[in-house]
């Protein structure tokens, strides 16, 4: 399956995400999920980004929390709401919110 996952949390949800498998996996970081794209703890990036997936982060939620595209890990692509709509309809058959 082609699965798009909206990750809205920083501390929770990784347990669920780690078990999901999909032929094509997209992880869209929204809300507090954006910290996975921007924040290092003890110098290390979020382990979530090691997962084999396409990563996106919602620019609006980045900016709301004091970040810009320049702060985003190179594995993650900043996107707008309009881009998210295209991802939903064109790239992923099923979408979930964590």
């Amino acid at each position: 399956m082609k699965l798009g996952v909206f990750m809205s949390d920083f501390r929770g949800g990784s347990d669920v995400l780690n078990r999901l498998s999909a032929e094509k996996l997209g992880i869209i970081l929204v809300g507090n999920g954006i910290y996975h794209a921007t924040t290092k703890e003890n110098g290390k990036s979020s382990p979530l980004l090691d997962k084999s997936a396409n990563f996106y982060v919602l620019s609006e939620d980045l900016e709301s929390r004091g970040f810009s595209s320049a702060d985003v890990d190179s594995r993650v692509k900043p996107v707008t709401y309009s881009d998210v709509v295209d991802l939903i309809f064109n790239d992923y058959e099923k979408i979930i919110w964590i």
Partner: protein
Amino acid sequence: MGKLTIGCFSSLVGSVSLDFGVKLAEAAVKKGHEVDFWVSSNATMLSKKGQKAFKDYSHLAKTLTELFATGKFKAVVCEACAEARGYHKDDTMEGWGRRSMDWYLASTFSADRVLLIGGD
């Protein structure tokens, strides 16, 4: 063009997940898609009329009015969830429907994509 059904349980105030749902609906409608929007649990407050805009709280009523005007956006609130929170049919914002949970399931039947945004 496709149909997106969004279900949301998150609070109008105290969580920005509901804001996400409404903004996503707005973006989808702008691109010509059709959106069904279902609110239950604490998200029911989104459909209550008379919401005042304060700078400390999310205010989505204006966006909803604009969305209803497009004719591509349908929004329905879980009737039991609303009644349990003490607000009744007369308190519902113009444009909204009030139904039981089976309406949401029926909406998913014809949806190309379904996004359920869980609680707080």
